[in-house]
């Protein structure tokens, strides 16, 4: 690197970091505002504005050509814009849903929103990484903010327990991750993803070093996307975290981490030797997620296991190892973000126990849809989409991760996937029928009375849910355009041909 030309390069590359800078700077401004005007109600709206502007910027860059910036540490182009769009919109929805929720709990601290912004910055970096160091930076920025967000309701033991669990296990997985990077660096002598693919792995010991490092690296990633058998933390953490933030954790984090994983698989290890290992993890993840979800009585725990299961479906697309598989996985991440943020959003507005819904059973919400038809209808759509019913987005998503896997000769994997989807119908439908088909008289009154202590459904929050539901219908019918976009990211010249 020639330092004499570094400055002009940095300046010309600056637009590529537009979202990262805007979100980060506004996040800082929010902290400053919070310092002078404690918990000012305008703080979340600052965040909404920044995320909205950034999302609009990214939306206009979906067709941009792919290239690298900042001395090949970061990538730009359609792929990155797409992932950023998911992350930014998810962050936007999270803030809109958090406002009434935290208001109800009297924890509407200004720094919460700033932390959401900072973890968004981390995710954006993660999703646009072209270098192991960028991946690590992004991952840690994201995770540290999330640890704090999980436990910021510090008077609540459950939340603190969750945060601690998340932090300890997260730190542990980071260890794996770092060690993996170190070994891969040792084998190839580079941190840049494309250079890793190009490096000669001559001797047996170098190969062992590289693949051993890669395995450890994958463990770290599987932890972040909660793939089995590294999923143990998920239900506990999801159950104890403030509900809208759980939604954020389960969607944006996954989108960013999967994006980085795709980048690594495509650029650093394009050979596909890992195909069967990823397929094996996918099987385990789908089976454990779905089977465990069957037995849950708490909706947040149920959704936690369901999010494990969905990580499995995405892994099915990845294990195909083809461009269609990656494109399908990207599409799935978008759909999954929409439906899951919605599902957690609905639950956040139906929470009466004052303990982040930790102690509230599903059956205590019997017949709630009759009192709150909008929440009931949107929840119905989210659940049906999670099952994968056409014409909702969830179906199109599943179709386009399963189809490439069949094409790649992994029909057995897809058979397991669809059987698990059928199984999942049982527990998702349970939510639907408790909401719609039972009445409060049907269930024994062991649960505290559903008091009127539900968080106030603001127009913005309800509107977010309705937009999510409508988006699922649109994505379920007119998926062609989005799919074409994602397919476009993986077309044309092969990266593997680099020297």
């Amino acid at each position: 690197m020639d330092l004499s030309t570094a400055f002009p390069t940095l300046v010309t590359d600056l637009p590529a970091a537009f979202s990262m800078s805007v979100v980060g700077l506004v996040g800082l401004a929010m902290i400053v505002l919070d310092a002078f005007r404690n918990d000012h109600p305008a703080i979340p709206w600052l965040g909404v504005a920044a995320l909205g502007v950034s999302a609009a910027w990214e939306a206009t860059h979906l067709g941009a050509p792919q290239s690298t910036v900042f001395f090949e540490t970061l990538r730009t182009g359609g792929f990155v814009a797409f992932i950023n769009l998911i992350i930014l919109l998810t962050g936007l929805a999270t803030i809109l849903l958090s406002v009434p929720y935290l208001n109800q709990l009297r924890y509407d601290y200004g720094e919460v929103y700033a932390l959401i912004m900072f973890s968004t910055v981390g995710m954006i970096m993660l999703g646009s990484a072209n270098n192991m160091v960028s991946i690590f930076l992004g991952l840690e920025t994201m995770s540290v903010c999330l640890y704090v967000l999980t436990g910021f309701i510090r008077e609540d033991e459950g939340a603190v327990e969750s945060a601690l669990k998340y932090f300890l296990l997260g730190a542990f997985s980071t260890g794996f991750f770092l060690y993996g990077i170190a070994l891969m660096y040792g084998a190839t002598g580079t941190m840049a993803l494309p250079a890793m693919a190009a490096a000669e792995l001559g001797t047996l010991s170098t190969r062992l070093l590289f693949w051993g490092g890669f395995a450890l690296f994958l463990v770290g990633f599987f932890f972040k996307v909660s793939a089995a058998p590294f999923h143990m933390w998920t239900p506990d953490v999801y159950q104890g975290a403030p509900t809208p933030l759980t939604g954020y954790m389960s969607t944006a984090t996954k989108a960013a981490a999967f994006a980085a994983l795709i980048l690594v698989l495509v650029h650093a290890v394009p050979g596909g030797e890992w195909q069967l290992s990823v397929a094996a993890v996918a099987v385990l993840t789908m089976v454990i997620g779905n089977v465990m979800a069957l037995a849950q009585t708490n909706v947040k725990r149920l959704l936690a296991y369901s999010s494990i299961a969905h990580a499995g479906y995405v892994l099915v697309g990845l294990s195909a190892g083809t461009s269609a598989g990656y494109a399908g996985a990207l599409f799935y991440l978008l759909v999954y973000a929409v439906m899951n943020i919605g599902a957690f959003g609905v639950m956040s507005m139906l929470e009466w126990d004052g303990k982040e819904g930790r102690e509230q059973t599903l059956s205590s919400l019997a017949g709630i849809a009759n009192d709150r038809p909008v929440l009931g209808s949107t929840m119905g759509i989210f659940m049906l989409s999670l099952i994968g019913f056409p014409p909702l987005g969830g179906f199109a998503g599943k179709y386009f991760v399963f189809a490439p896997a069949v094409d790649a000769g992994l029909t057995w994997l897809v058979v397991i996937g669809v059987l698990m989807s059928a199984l999942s119908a049982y527990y998702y439908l349970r939510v639907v029928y408790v909401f719609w088909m039972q009445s409060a008289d049907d269930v024994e009154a062991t649960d505290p009375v559903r008091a009127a202590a539900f968080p106030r459904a603001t127009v913005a929050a309800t509107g977010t849910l309705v937009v999510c539901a409508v988006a699922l219908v649109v994505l379920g019918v007119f998926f062609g355009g989005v799919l074409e976009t994602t397919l476009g990211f993986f077309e044309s010249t092969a990266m593997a041909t680099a020297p």
Partner: protein
Amino acid sequence: MNIPHLTSLVIFLPALGAVLTLALRRASAIRWTALATTLATFLLSIGLFVGYDPSVSTALAPQLADVWAGWLPDGYDIKYFVGIDGLSLLLVMLTTLLGPIVVLSSWTYIGEKHKGYYALLLLLQTGITGVFTSFDLFLFYIFFELTLIPMYFIIGIWGGTERIYAAVKFVIYTLVGSLLMLVGILYLGYAAGDAVNNGVFTTDWYTLLEYNIPLAVQGWLFAVFAFSFAIKVPLFPLHTWLPDAHVQAPTGGSVILAGVLLKMGTYGLLRFCLPLFPNVAQSSAGLFAVIAIIGIIYGALVARVQDDAKSLVAYSSISHLGFVVLGLFAFTTEAMQGAVIQMVNHGLSTGALFLLVGMLYERRHTRLMDDYGGLATSVPVLTTLMVISVLASAGLPGLNGFVGEFLILLGSFKSPVIDSPVLIAFATTGVILAAMYLLHMVYRTFFGELTNEANAQMADLNGREFGLMVPLIVLMFVLGFFPSPFLRQTAPTTEFLLETVEEKRAAVERMEANDAATAEEPTQVPTAPPEGQEVSIDVPSTSP
């Protein structure tokens, strides 16, 4: 009369009505909107009946077709492709006919949450019509699954006491089958794409027909497709969801379920299983005939011992649909024609039976036959209609049921594929058994002594109820006395399907024989290059 996009209009008009009902508040406004929508759809579908010309071949494309190829990117040959052929036509007409009838039958039966009920009913009609008109397997699958959700809610919200159990059972059963079929669709799409579509994934029905599937693959593909449709029909022993769903569903739901929803199973067998997998379909015809006959007899025997009138009609459905499946797997023109017409007949007569049982239930809030008796004196009109419907269902000559069952049995007797008249003789007992259990029901419910005061006070049919029954009763006679106009509409398509089955079967056999011949001569076959799994991403080549 030439209305553009008529087929799509018939499919989506009810969905439009569903959206419209969501915007309304008053129950009466919702009901009238639903009625107007379904009536308008029915009138439009008459345009299909008139516009369809049986003398024009549908061997290459359906009539009144609507295609939109830009639905998906180029990597997938998946189209929005709907149209009409002889097979679709009558089933679409049946669906649109039952639409307004079901709305009318729910007029007072549904006492709460009107908006949701009518919106779901209309959405359901869109799904069913879509199933019968799709000529793209992917599109078919979407509509096929789309019917599940509304039915789930209709049973689960407006159903009887065990409604949730019935609704969940209904969904899970169907979903297991249809998701396995989805794997089959994916596999078939890629295989057919490689063989006949320049490597592009395809689900176009006509393109799929060009592909002769190797025997080894045909076996399991047929298995997953047939499994899915067999659950829907339902065939013995996969039928156990049906009585639960029927008994718990509100009358409107039962009528749709028996009238058209079950036909999606037999339709799927005929549209996809037989022509796409002809070799396996023919070699397993004996198996299916046996299963169908077990269903015929088992359904009839179980129906005989029911105390619940609705449950009796539900089991009679299993028995009657056994005939349809038998007709399909006989592979003769008569039997297949009989099967198609029997699908319609069953929709009319069983629909009528469910409607009448529902009317009794609305009056007395019981379905047990013991609670009735002697109704003939108090409700003569209802009794008359019931007797006609029962006789139609039992296959009395002069009414519609006879035509279908006769053709099926005739065709099956001379079927070279099943080739077992003894077996078919067993099937004929189903006709006798049907008369037994149905007349038994009529006797217990309508004749004998009028003991219960509530039964004596029962009001006879009102104008709405009578009006909604009239079209069904009239059609029972029309189809019974003059079936030929309807059979003429379906004949070219059934013949085309049978020819296709025969041609493709022979083609696959030739193909397999060739393969076996080349395998015996160990010639130098150039090894195929391994399948590349290159992943590419658009980036300028960078060197570290």
